[in-house]
């Protein structure tokens, strides 16, 4: 093999069929004799397959959405026709036109007065519309927002359905976002409240650490919700100080145990520090409970 290897971008462009025919042939010839590029291409193909499978549901849901809007639009058009026709027929009569004109003036006057008196306007419909637009796309990348907004009435006819499959460049961006997300995968829909709480079972440094971490996370949530009412300024200061000291001990000893898993002394201090933190948090939780019982 004399030719230089291709990068991931070129390989992906090859897979997406974006290269010119002569370049495509060159790349194909090279890949057939280069193990590294063959592996790279296989990896890219796997990632593409994974991204397609993940986005399949979204692809499938977009087309019915367009159909649905088309149906809604047709229904609206039908209703418009059936409703306005007799009204226009009625207004063609001269007496009715005069009466309607006066009535219109009256309604506008009353309406202006009503607005001046700050009568609250019912915004329910607007809010609902905004809520409907809050359908979140699967991906976090804003440039790749899939179906972000529900069109207003005049735009109903031209709702575009987004399908990435015919557009390789967009799909590639989608796939990159997916691959990056997979690489930095964290549990979905679980906000990380405590650094210690990050998947403790996988990083358990001492026996029973997961239990300690779980207990601490629960207590921390309880205490954080109530410590403002339970602790006065001096108690709060003491609490935060003790908590900081304990957290520092936990952090240092966790680091030490990770570096040296056979360090029994560090493990002992770590367990002790965990227990001290639980005691500290329990103390505040118990105080809150007592104060509540006295009310």
């Amino acid at each position, binding site marked *: 093999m004399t030719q230089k290897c291709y990068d991931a971008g070129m390989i992906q462009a090859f897979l997406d069929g974006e290269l010119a025919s002569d370049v495509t042939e060159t790349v194909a010839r090279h890949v057939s004799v280069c193990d590294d590029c063959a592996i790279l291409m296989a990896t890219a193909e796997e990632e593409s397959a994974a991204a397609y499978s993940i986005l399949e549901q979204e692809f499938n849901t977009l087309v019915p959405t367009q159909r649905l809007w088309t149906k809604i639009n047709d229904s609206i058009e039908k209703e418009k026709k059936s409703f306005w026709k007799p009204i226009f027929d009625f207004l063609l009569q001269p*007496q009715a036109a*005069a009466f309607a004109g*006066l009535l219109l003036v009256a309604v506008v006057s009353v309406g202006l007065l009503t607005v001046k008196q700050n009568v609250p306007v019912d915004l329910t419909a607007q809010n609902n519309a905004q809520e409907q637009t809050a359908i979140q796309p699967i991906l976090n990348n804003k440039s790749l927002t899939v179906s972000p907004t529900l069109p207003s009435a005049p735009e109903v006819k031209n709702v575009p359905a987004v399908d990435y499959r015919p557009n390789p460049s967009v799909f590639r961006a989608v796939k990159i976002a997916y691959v990056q997300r997979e690489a930095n995968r964290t549990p979905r829909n679980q906000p990380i409240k405590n650094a210690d709480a990050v998947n403790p079972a996988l990083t358990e440094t001492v026996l029973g650490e997961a239990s300690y971490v779980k207990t601490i996370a629960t207590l921390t949530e309880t205490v954080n919700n109530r410590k403002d009412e339970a602790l006065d300024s001096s*108690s709060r200061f003491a609490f935060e100080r003790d908590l900081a000291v304990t957290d520092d001990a936990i952090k240092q000893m966790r680091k030490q145990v990770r570096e040296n898993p056979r360090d029994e002394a560090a493990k002992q201090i770590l367990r002790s520090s965990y227990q*001290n933190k639980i005691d500290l948090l329990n103390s505040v939780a118990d105080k809150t409970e007592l*104060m509540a019982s006295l009310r």
Partner: protein
Amino acid sequence: MIFTSTTARQISFLIGAFFLFAPFCRMFAQTVPVEPKIVIAPANQKVATKQNRNKVFRGSETSAEKSIVVDAKVNISLCIAEGRLKINGWERSEIRVFVGGGGEVGFKVLQKNKQNNAVWVMVTGFGAAQNREKSGEECLSGEEIELDVPRGAVVNVKGSASEMTIEAVRKVDIKIVSGDISLNNIAEGINAATYNGDVTVENSGGAMTLESANGSIVAFDAAPSEIGDIFKAKTSGGAITLQQIEYRQTEISSNTGSLKFTGEFQNGGQYDFRTVSGGILLVIPEKSSCKLNATYGFGRFNSELKLDIITENNTSKARSIVGSMGKGDANVNLTTYSGAIRIKKQ
């Protein structure tokens, strides 16, 4: 051309005139001053605030005193909103309550025995003629609150702000938000917690759990009343000082405070001392018999007594020393992260 009909013209004129003048009528109506609504509050209305919610404000500020005949092993429950509380055990089968400079006092018998003596009594902040619905909260309040109770009584106290002294009763269970607790001659067990104050226990027995958030804990001359009684003391920021504690199972912990133990280790005893940044000091007899496991991080270890080292591990951030004294009857675990561990001769 539009107005082809006379009737239609008349109707249109009337409606137009009405709506033409309607806005002016409305504007005029808006200029008429509206008489404001004035709500007169009752003159004697009490405002419920957090500060006075639990207080007993009924009655005069004079003293109140009441007594009731009870069983010798009566269980007494009371709540203290504010005031210094003194409970003293006496030989009579009777409870006497005195409240000075506060509200009223009453008893609520919750349970009686076959001899028709009260075995469970609640001391309330309202008299017998009143009831809770009329009188409000049940917590006692006053400058001085004194109770004389049978020596065999079990006393349960909860409160928000109080200094408590309890002597010569069988058992005590206390939880207060703020205030010092002093206990003396409690025969069969103590469970005491204050979240802002000190706890002092003297000459007592039974299982003990002493807790303070910011304050210190001092205990001396304490022993189990039954086999298996445990002594526990924990505080977040305060120190713990123990002297002549004769429990075989002892658990002492503080986050940032120091721990001091003076006395002998019991044969077969299990002693755990934990602190994060505080020091640990053991003052023990020269002929102590224990197996000692000292673990510390950035602190140091020092012993005046001879310690036969069994194992010693040193890493960059943690060290442990396992050694024995005498026959090694008791197990003593000392753990601190950044404090010093010292063993001194008594």
